[in-house]
C-alpha cells in the first residue's frame, strides 16, 4: 500500500492573530505555523496504514520553502519521504493547487511509484475551502470520499466510515482512491526527539510548479468579531427572580 498525504502549512489555530494593514494577509510576525489539524490526522493514518499493510508513505505540500518544516515534522513522525511543490509564498486558489498536485502525482507515478491512496484533511484550517481533495480525485478520475473517521482495507477496497446522525455511513471505494479525513479518526502521535534527528537525513524532493492563472482572486480578509465572554449577574438569591423572569421574556423563552 503506497500512500501519499497532502498537507498545508497554516498558522497555529489556537494563536491570537492580526491582519496586515492592507487586509490582504495574516500578520505572521509573531505566529507559529503548524500542519492543519485534519491533515495531522491524515499523516497519522498514513503511518498506521503502513504499519499494518506495509508499503510506502510520502507527504506533499504546496507552499514556500519554509513549508519544508511541516514536511520535516511529518518525516519525524515516520513518513518515508517528502515532496515540496515550492511557490513564491503567494496564495494559490484551490483549482491551481489541485492542478499542481495532480501534475506532481502523475509525474511521480511515471517514475514507478504508484500511489494506491491519496489522503487529505477534510478542509484546511485557514481557508477552509473543502475543495482540493475532491478536485484532485476528479482530475485523476479516482473515486473520492470526504469527511472520513475510519479507514480499513478489504480485498483491494477501502472501507471508509463517515459519521451520520445516529450512526455511520459506510463506503467502499476501489483503489486507487482519494479520501479526506476528519479530526477524531485517530490521535496523532508526538514526533520523538530521535524521530526528529532521523528526519534530518530523509529526502525532500523539491518541484517548482509553474504558477497558473488564478481564477479565484482574494479581495481582502476581515477578522470576525470576537465572541463576547461577558457574564451578566442579574442579582443574588430570591431578589434576582424578577430580573431573571424579565431576561427570559426578553430572550423569548417564556
Amino acid at each position, binding site marked *: 500500500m503506497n500512500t501519499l498525504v497532502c498537507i498545508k502549512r497554516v498558522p497555529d489555530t489556537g494563536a491570537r492573530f492580526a491582519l496586515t494593514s492592507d487586509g490582504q494577509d495574516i500578520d505572521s510576525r*509573531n505566529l*507559529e505555523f*503548524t500542519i492543519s489539524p485534519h491533515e495531522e490526522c491524515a499523516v497519522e493514518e498514513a503511518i498506521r496504514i503502513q504499519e499494518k499493510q506495509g508499503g510506502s508513505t510520502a507527504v506533499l505540500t504546496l507552499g514556500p520553502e519554509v513549508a*519544508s*518544516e511541516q514536511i*520535516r*515534522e511529518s518525516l*519525524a513522525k515516520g513518513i518515508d519521504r517528502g515532496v515540496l511543490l515550492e511557490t513564491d509564498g503567494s496564495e494559490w486558489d484551490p483549482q491551481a493547487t489541485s492542478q499542481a498536485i495532480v501534475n506532481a502525482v502523475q509525474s511521480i507515478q511515471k517514475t514507478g511509484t504508484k500511489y494506491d491512496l491519496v489522503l487529505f484533511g477534510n478542509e484546511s484550517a485557514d481557508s477552509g475551502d473543502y475543495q482540493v481533495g475532491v478536485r484532485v480525485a476528479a482530475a485523476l478520475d479516482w473515486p473520492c470520499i470526504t469527511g472520513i473517521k475510519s479507514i480499513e482495507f478489504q480485498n483491494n477496497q477501502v472501507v471508509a466510515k463517515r459519521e451520520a446522525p445516529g450512526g455511520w455511513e459506510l463506503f467502499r471505494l476501489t483503489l486507487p482512491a482519494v479520501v479526506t479525513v476528519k479530526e477524531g479518526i485517530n490521535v496523532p502521535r*508526538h*514526533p*520523538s*526527539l*530521535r*524521530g*526528529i*534527528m532521523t*528526519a*534530518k537525513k530523509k529526502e525532500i524532493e523539491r518541484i517548482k510548479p509553474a504558477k497558473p492563472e488564478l481564477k479565484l482572486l482574494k479581495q481582502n480578509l476581515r477578522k470576525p468579531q470576537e465572541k463576547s*465572554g*461577558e457574564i451578566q449577574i442579574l442579582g443574588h438569591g430570591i431578589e434576582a427572580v424578577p430580573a431573571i423572569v424579565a431576561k427570559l421574556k426578553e430572550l423569548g423563552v417564556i
Partner: protein
Amino acid sequence: MDSPFFSEEHRIFRRSVRKFVDEELNPHVDEWEAAGRFPKEVYKKLGDLGVLGIRYPAEYGGADADIWTTAVFCEEMGRCRSRGLTMSVLVQTDMSSPHLAYRGSDFLKKKYLPGMISGKRVGAIVLSEPEVGSDLANMRTTAKKKGDQYILNGSKTYITNALQADLFFVAAKTDPSAGKKGVSMLLVERDSPGFLIEPMKKKLGMHASDTGELTFQNTPVPAENLIGEENQGFYYVMESLQKERFVSCCAMTSSAQQAIEDTIDYAQSRNIFGKKLSEYDLTRYKLARLQTRVEAARQLTYYAAHLYDRGLDWTDAVSMSKAFCAEVANEVADECLQIHGGAGYIEEYDIPRLFRDLRLWKIGAGTTEVMYYILAKRMGI
C-alpha cells in the same frame, strides 16, 4: 519571539513537547497536585518521547542533541501547569543523571543509564543535610571504605523525587578531615539495606513533586558504584550545579511568560468600571514592563547556553541568569496575581499555584544570595 539560536529541528521539537504537555500532562495536573505526586508512568512516556537523554550518547538511548534542544525542552516543560512535576522531571534529566552520564564508569553507564533515559528508573540528587544545609564541604554524612564496599551513615533532607526514585546520587564524606576535598559521589539503589525514606509534606508550592528525608544506617554501597574518582565529588557537584541552574532558568522564564499570557487573556475579558481591564494604561504599562523583563531574563539565559555551546566558561552567565530569572519570575507572579485581583487569590486560576511554585527558585539550586556571593567573589570583591 523567534530566535536565531533555534533551527527547524528545534522548532519541530518545541511543538512536539508543547503538545505533549498540553495533551498528556496538563489535563491531570490538578489531581497530581492534590495527591502530592504523579504517576511514574509519566517518566516512561517522556522516555518514549526521547527527552530523558537529550545530550547523552545514542549508544545508551540518548539523542546526542545540543544544549539548545535542552533549552527548548525545559522551556516547554515550564509551561506545564504543575511546575512541581516539571521540577521532578528536570531532576531526572539535568540534575541527577548527568553525574552518571558525564562522570560514571562504563560499567555504571551500561548498567543504569539506558533505564534512566527510557524512564524505567527515576533519579534523585542527594546533597542537603539537616544540620549544614547545602554546605557540602562541612557535610556530616560519611562513606567509609570497607573491602569492596562503602558503608554509608548520615541524614539528608529536602530531597526531590525521594519517594519515587530508584537511584540516588548521594554526596558523602570519604575523607571527613579534608573539607571539600573529601567529598565523593555514590550511586545508591533504593532497596539498599539500612536506607530509610520519609516523606516531607506541606510544602509551600511544587505540590506534585514529592520531597523526602533520607537516613543511611550502615548502608552498604558497592565500591563500583563510586561516581568518578574518590574525593572529587565536591567538584562534580559544582560543575553539575551550573546545568541545574541553567535548566531552572529556562523553565521559570517560560512559566513567567505563560503567566503574562494568562493575565493578558484575563485582562481582556474582565470589565471594570465600564471598560476592559486591558484598556487601562496602568495594566498595559505593567504587562509591557513585565514582558521586557522576561525577555531580558530569557536572553541572559540564551547567552549562557551560547557560552556552553562554544565550550566556554558559563559560570558567571549562569549565576547572573539564575539570580535574575528568579527575581523576574517572582515579580511576574506577584504582579500578574495583582492584576487578577480577587480572582488571583482563588485556586480556580493557575496564578496562585504559579505564585507559590516560582517562589522556590529564589532558593532551590542555590539561593539568589549564593548566586550574588559567587559573582562578587569572581569580580574580585
